[in-house]
């Protein structure tokens, strides 16, 4: 069968590639139903990655956050019509103790390989996670929630046992979801969010305290911290965290920086801190995310950071959703009907 793949060929330019997919291989064929845009997609779309990366990775279909419906399954794992979310991580070497998302030779759809902007997706059954009781427009951000799940589970494995005070630096959608997962994982802990925009911080009604970065009290202390800023905000966030974290605390870095970021290592050494990089997620994180998102309260809370744009039927509409995404502070989701 001839499948249409909507590739970004250069910033702001899409083209359709037609490609055979075999209906007979032991793969699941999924019709994408809802998608969400990530900052990484937006950076490719706008040409904000460096020229060498763009030349190496394009043409490529964008989008790695996707919920869909099973159309056919030659592996007999899922029934036709089952709603599913797709895992963009492509497993590499299977090494005991190494997460699938960091394993050598692993890949990622929408970073060097075509993402989910396709008419149909043929994918291995172990990259497909079923869901039932979640709105498809919310299920579209499962990958995003799974990234927060992964970060928190890494902290659980690595951090010392004092887990009473957490700080999250950032006030965007990643900070929001990390805070939600923390609230759920450590119901009694005190969670503080530090951001730059009062309007965005207002949405964090479920945490104990919010502060503007320049108003964080001098004597504020936390056990562990999550950095969810990235870009130009990374440096000051990491500096503030190092200044306020208690000895032997764990700092989980989640924001993506384009350039190297200086870190005040003297203080890292003096306090005996652990710095953990956390990126992407694997199947276990997806399954935990689906379980968490199946709760009604969680869906209601997530809906406050989801903005649904009009459906995408043509390439013109793809441009529209990327433009819309620039005007909203949170997650843009859209129905895929190409």
């Amino acid at each position, binding site marked *: *069968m*001839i499948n*249409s*793949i909507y590739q970004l060929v250069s910033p702001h330019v899409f083209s*359709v*590639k*037609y*490609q*055979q*997919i075999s*209906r*007979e291989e032991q793969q699941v*064929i999924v*019709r994408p139903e809802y998608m969400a845009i990530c900052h990484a997609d937006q950076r490719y779309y706008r040409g904000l990655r460096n020229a060498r990366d763009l030349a190496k990775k394009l043409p490529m279909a964008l989008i790695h956050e996707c919920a869909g419906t099973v*159309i*056919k399954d*030659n592996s007999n794992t899922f029934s*036709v*019509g089952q709603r599913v979310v797709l895992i963009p991580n492509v497993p590499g070497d299977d090494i005991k103790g190494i997460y699938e998302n960091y394993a050598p030779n692993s890949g990622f759809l929408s970073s060097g*390989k*075509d993402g989910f902007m396709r*008419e*149909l997706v*043929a*994918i291995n059954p172990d990259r497909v996670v079923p869901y039932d009781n979640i709105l498809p427009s919310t299920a579209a951000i499962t990958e995003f929630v799974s990234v927060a799940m992964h970060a928190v589970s890494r902290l659980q494995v690595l951090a010392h046992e004092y887990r009473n005070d957490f700080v999250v630096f950032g006030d965007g959608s990643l900070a929001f979801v990390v805070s939600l997962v923390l609230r759920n994982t450590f119901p009694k802990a005190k969670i503080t969010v530090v951001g730059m925009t009062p309007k965005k911080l207002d949405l964090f009604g479920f945490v104990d305290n919010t502060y503007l970065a320049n108003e964080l009290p001098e004597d504020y202390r936390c056990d562990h911290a999550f950095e969810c800023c990235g870009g130009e905000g990374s440096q000051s966030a990491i500096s503030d965290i190092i200044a306020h974290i208690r000895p032997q605390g764990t700092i989980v870095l989640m924001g993506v920086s384009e350039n190297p970021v200086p870190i005040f290592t003297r203080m890292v050494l003096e306090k005996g801190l652990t710095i953990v990089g956390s990126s992407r997620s694997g199947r276990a994180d997806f399954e935990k995310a689906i379980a968490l998102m199946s709760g009604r309260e969680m869906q209601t809370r997530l809906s406050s950071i989801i903005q649904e744009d009009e459906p995408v*039927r*043509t390439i013109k509409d793809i441009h529209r959703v990327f433009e819309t995404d620039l005007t909203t502070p949170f997650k843009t989701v859209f129905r895929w*009907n*190409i």
Partner: protein
Amino acid sequence: MIFGAILAGGVGSRMKIADRPKQFLPLDEKPILIHTLEKFLMCSRFEKIYIGVHEKWVLYAKDIVKKYISEPERVEIVEGGKDRNLTIMSIIEGIERDYGKSDDHIIVTHDSVRPFVSIRIIEENIDAALKYGACDTVIPATDTIVRSDDGKFITEIPERPLMYQGQTPQSFKMSLLKNTYNSLSEEQKAILTDACKILVVANIPVSLVQGDVANMKITAIEDYRVAEAMAGGEKRD
């Protein structure tokens, strides 16, 4: 119930490169008809997909469906008629024989030589046929349309923004299409070039579904070359 009706009744080839009708020519290793059928099979709303084929090619069509399709039970091959609309009527006859008559049946008719049809177009056809009773798939005309009654001089140049090019699918409430066709005189039937015209001639409204330039019809050697180039993308995952 909703049925697919793939029209593969042609016997000739304008390609001058083949000894068989163009719907059976290979496109990236599979017959064009199979590509089209596979796309229809991706739509779970279809109860069954009927293919209308000239009597000489019925056995061949059955052979290739068996060879390439893993769920042949969703496909039925019927002998077509001597023109396009008679082939549709043969398919309707087959559907009524297998599933009985019903005013709720919907039929999505499609050229077998348009393998680049998208799931969106098929879905929107079904929705429009359910809502309006009939629909045609069209794209805005890009070339200026020139009308000439004698083939020598221009009679009229219609306003281009009002002009569209018809593609397929064309989808209908089955009973509406059949009853209207049967009510037409032989003269009216003689001027029909497609199925939507059956309703247009009878003043029955037909809604428009947005098509796609890629949903091209492979009729001449140039189209075939373009289609080969389009379908030639190698697999990469």
